[in-house]
């Protein structure tokens, strides 16, 4: 919830935001009214991917940044299953 509060405040201050949420907290963006979220199928504590899976981490960051131009609430599932490189 912490990031949901901050993300809302930053968006309300006029700065577009996007958050990367793990599936266990995939309900947070909708319930808290967060503007944009990418939900990853990763375990808690590894939101962008497994340690040293630079390819996945980078792809998640890229995909999340692509959501910033959305002008309505957007909550998208990244989709790919967690993997150990």
């Amino acid at each position, binding site marked *: 919830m912490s990031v949901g509060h901050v993300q809302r405040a930053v968006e309300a201050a006029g700065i577009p935001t996007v958050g990367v949420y793990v599936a266990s907290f995939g309900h947070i963006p909708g319930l808290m009214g967060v503007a944009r979220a990418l939900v990853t199928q990763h375990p808690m504590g590894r939101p962008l991917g497994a340690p040293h899976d630079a390819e996945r981490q980078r792809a998640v960051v890229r995909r999340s*940044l692509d959501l910033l131009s959305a002008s309505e609430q957007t909550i998208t599932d990244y989709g790919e299953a967690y993997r150990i490189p």
Partner: protein
Amino acid sequence: MDKPESIEDLRRSFSYGSRSNLNFKFLKDLSDEEFGHFLEQLLAAVDSSMDDGDATGAIDVAFRWQVQGYSGHLGDPAEFRHRHDDVPLATMSKPLNESRVALITSSGHFIDGDDPQPFGEPSMSQQEAEDRIQEFLREAPTLSAIPFDAPSEQLRVRHGGYPVRAAATDHQVALPIGHLQALRDEGIIGDLVPDAYSFVGAASQLRIQRDAGPAWAEQLKDIGTDVALFVPV
């Protein structure tokens, strides 16, 4: 004679109890029946891994039940304590390749020499942070600034609310400072603000909503942030 441990006692012991394991603290929220299914599936997956050495199945079982533990036991969404029915929405003023990007994660990272020293204690261990989780949940969070070019050997992470081993092994699982630098260098994003930010998300929700969130939003505006990437853990 001590009372025998119940299944509920066993489930709860993984959440800051005698068997504390932050990857599995969700077990406290499962029903006893669900806990039985979890164990059955986990043992079957471990059984399978004994012959092929592939732990993917066990990881998947742990992941799926973690999701069930958190998302499957919310109760009535209308009663969700931090529910908001409005959605603040801002509009990009320029394309991404001209925008200055900020990064804020709730991972609990900080740079060596800039320990936020919770409760005034220097060099608190991860174990102590877990042991004092209830105190953290009553306190205001501290925002730690981390230069985007900080060397990984100077990064520290401590957070009593989630399993930090992955974030300690490779900070970019939650603090993607290197990836954002690369995207800037490739021209995908325009620029980065001077520092990335991290805080311990296990803090007073009231203080975050009322004080820290609005204050940090002003801070991001003051340093010329065009868009912000958030990474909760």
